[in-house]
């Protein structure tokens, strides 16, 4: 299946819709608005890629996620900041012992899952911010192997966590209690379905019909796998700046794929040939 780039949102610059130095994370709210975080800001774009809102964060942000009730969670170093839809700061979870570098946030029912790339694990909290358990830490390496310094995951509708264990070249599946259910993926530099280099995939997200979308570094690629983890298609080559790494990825309600170019500080939108629904 072929994917083609259809749009570019934001970019490097000093304009209100642009990022000056960093663009690290993206996510969608239930209404289909795109949230992008970088520098020290949250920027909200509508479906056409037009900037609708922006506000400042306390620390440089690494990731963003929006809960069904519209609460915006922003992951930073040492804390998770929360905002309402208008950008008003409604609170923060501070946990110096458990929030080293928050690089991914997800939700399942009343649970909030937070990836701490510094301690190399995913932490489960209840909706009030009370810690419940850690995921991916009960092993001989005491956490995920992520030399790339970024831990990304996605939660499916049944509550299974799909997490990138990049130095193992695997995407692992865990229960909310932290039990490892299995994994897929192998190291390989030749066949495109395999994961190359020292540590890939770096980022991932789940898409419709059980699909999995991942991004890789050196060289940068976006790949789509079906429910059985058969490779459906990929985009590489000149689509991304060659120095890109840890490219966050998100999927909207039409299965359009959004990938962060971390050097050009833009969000690239991809659609499968013949329509957005493959």
């Amino acid at each position, binding site marked *: 299946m072929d994917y083609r780039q259809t749009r570019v949102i934001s970019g490097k610059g000093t304009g209100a819709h642009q990022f000056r130095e960093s663009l690290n994370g993206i996510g969608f709210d239930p209404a289909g608005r795109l949230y992008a975080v970088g520098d020290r800001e949250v920027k909200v774009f509508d479906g056409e890629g037009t900037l609708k809102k922006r506000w400042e964060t306390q620390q440089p942000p690494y990731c963003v996620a929006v809960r069904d009730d519209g609460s915006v969670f922003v992951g930073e170093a040492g804390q998770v900041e929360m905002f309402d839809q208008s950008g008003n700061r409604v609170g923060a979870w501070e946990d110096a012992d458990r929030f080293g570098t928050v690089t991914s946030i997800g939700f399942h029912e009343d649970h909030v899952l937070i990836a701490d790339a510094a301690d190399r694990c995913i932490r489960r909290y209840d909706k009030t911010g009370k810690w419940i358990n850690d995921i991916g830490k009960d092993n*001989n390496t005491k956490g995920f*192997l992520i030399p790339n310094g970024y831990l990304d995951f996605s939660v499916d509708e049944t509550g299974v966590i799909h997490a990138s264990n990049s130095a*193992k070249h695997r995407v692992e599946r865990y229960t909310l209690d932290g039990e490892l259910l299995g994994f897929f993926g192998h*190291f390989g530099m030749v066949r495109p379905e395999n994961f190359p280099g020292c540590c890939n995939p770096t980022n991932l997200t789940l898409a419709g019909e059980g699909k999995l979308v991942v991004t890789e570094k050196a060289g940068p690629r976006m790949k789509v796998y079906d429910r059985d983890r058969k490779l459906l298609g990929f985009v590489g080559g000149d689509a991304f700046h060659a120095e890109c790494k840890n490219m966050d990825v998100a999927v909207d309600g039409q299965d359009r794929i959004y990938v962060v170019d971390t050097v050009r500080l833009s969000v690239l939108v991809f659609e499968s040939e013949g329509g957005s629904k493959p």
Partner: protein
Amino acid sequence: MKKQPTRRDVLGHVVRGTGLLVLGGAAVHLVRRANAEGAWWIDPTKCVNIRLGATGVEVCDLCATDCVLPLSAIRAVNEFSECGRCCICPAYYDVRSEVGPDGLPSRKLCPRDAITREAIGEVDPEDPLNNFYEYTIDEDKCNGCGACVMGCKEPAGLGSIRLEVRYDVCLDCNRCTIAQVCPDDAIVQKAIDLPGA
């Protein structure tokens, strides 16, 4: 009969002795300074093997081939604090070689087999992909060819390996033969605090 030294004589000796000490100290300082200014150094912002942004290019091995010494005075150095301790280190393995049944590349990258690795921490003996590894460079084998430096460079690796001049080996030639051929003018003289200088 031996003449007793006068106070004037004693003072003269003291002044001359102090003067000699000052002159000697100044000479030592100047020699040290001259040595420091003459030290050859690899500019990491110029060397194609080290500098960021130079990806997808051929490794330059002139440091290995053009030193006047039989084994070049330049070595690869792994900064442990920056190393990711990867299972499949792109500086240790030739990641483009065929993958073996153990899931690992079948060939090493270093042409002189100068890098060794050891699983560290709580080791999983069953699965080599399930461990951290410490990578050590054998300086008796390394000739500074730069292959591992290029392999570890960002974004493929973390850039923990770099090339350095080993000053206990370097002859500090007036005209460094590597500097004469370096296409990036990356071998330059710089004031460096040398150990023992």
